[in-house]
């Protein structure tokens, strides 16, 4: 079957219908994961052993099980429990639980990469420990954290495709529907791939811009 470039042009509007949901889910999942990572990292670095053990258990469980199974667990589980969640919501929760754990580890590495001497220097000029963390450690850690955070964001965007299995009509769902109805398989999946590449590239570019804005001139 010959490759028909004009078909790409006709595929784009159909896929664009799914684009909104993919973008919305990506943005929400990235924002919520980044937020959820904060209490998790506090839990991981807590002084109380019960808290660290509990948080560590959660992190190990989600990191060692597929996000797809977590989605199924939440989606089908919520409906059996009598509080049915939409595919979108179930997907959002699973993505947040999974990626929040990864992002917490990123935060932890960022904080630990700033030398203890920086805190000591802050304390030495009379800052309280809290202020030293906020004024000295956090701004430095933030810069260290941005590149791996950008990578995790790309992972999240790509993983939003999984909610297609929960009948959420996002990009991949639309493409599959189209592929089932027409024979233009190559064109559809090429267009779909280009959509994802465009989204992830745009996101990565924004993160690089942010990184550049926050750079330290050395």
């Amino acid at each position, binding site marked *: 079957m010959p490759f028909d470039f004009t078909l790409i042009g006709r595929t784009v509007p159909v896929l664009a219908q799914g684009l909104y949901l993919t973008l919305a889910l990506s943005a929400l999942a990235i924002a919520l994961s980044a937020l959820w990572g904060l209490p998790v990292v506090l839990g991981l670095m807590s002084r109380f052993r019960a808290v660290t053990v509990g948080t560590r258990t959660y992190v*190990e469980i989600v990191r060692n099980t597929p996000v797809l199974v977590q989605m199924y667990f939440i989606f089908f589980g919520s409906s*059996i429990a009598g509080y049915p969640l939409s595919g979108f919501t179930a997907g959002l929760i699973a993505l947040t639980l999974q990626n929040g754990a990864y992002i917490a580890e990123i935060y932890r590495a960022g904080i630990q990469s700033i030398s203890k001497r920086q805190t000591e220097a802050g304390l030495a000029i009379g800052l309280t420990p809290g202020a030293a963390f906020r004024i000295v450690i956090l701004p430095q850690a933030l810069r260290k954290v941005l590149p791996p955070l950008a990578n995790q964001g790309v992972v999240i965007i790509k993983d939003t495709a999984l909610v297609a299995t929960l009948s959420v009509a996002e990009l991949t769902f639309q493409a599959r529907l189209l592929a089932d109805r027409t024979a233009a398989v190559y064109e559809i999946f090429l267009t*779909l791939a280009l959509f994802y590449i465009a989204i992830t590239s745009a996101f990565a570019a924004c993160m690089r811009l942010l990184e550049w804005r926050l750079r330290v001139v050395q």
Partner: protein
Amino acid sequence: MSTAMFGTLIVSVPLLMRGVWITLLLTASAAVLATAFGFVIASVQLFGGFALRALAEVYLYIVRGVPLLVLLFAMYYALPYAGINVDPMLGGALVIGLYFAAFMADVFRGAVLAVAQGQWEAGRSIGLRTPRIFSDIILPQAIRVTGPPYINTLVMLVKGTSLVSIIGLADVTFVGRQIVERTLAPFQIFGGVAFIYFVICFVLSRCGAYLERRTSYVH
């Protein structure tokens, strides 16, 4: 804990085990492919000529930007159209292997670049040439730091194999979903499925930690 609470899960174990077998087979074959091809990509990135390096970058760019699920769909829809009938198992292993090869390449390349530049210089200063410096000096040191990120990538690969359930391969996730649709016991079944993945990934991590201890210089 009563048997009633886990009744459905216990009854489903034999069925799930058939899925586990598919998951393990898929994991093993995709892991071999990802490791081998990842090594090739990293070598090209480090030592290849301009054209080869550009090719590798394009490959990595695509894989980094496109979801694994989309690649799996593309493969399963597109190949039959092209008149190629590929065994779904083989196809799945291929796509997953090639996909994670990109991440393996990052691991290997990162490990080589992590070896101090002075090691290359010390090798050069006694008159060794690049291939020899690489094989005798850089590689043994790179392998030592490869362990943890390599295992992390393998864990990602194990989790990634669950996606083949969406294109109809009867792995443990697929079997789990089928059982849930008949028994309406999602907590038990998906909890059990998650536990199985956890065990596989956990065993991998332990192996990694063991290897790391074995390969450290100071015993």
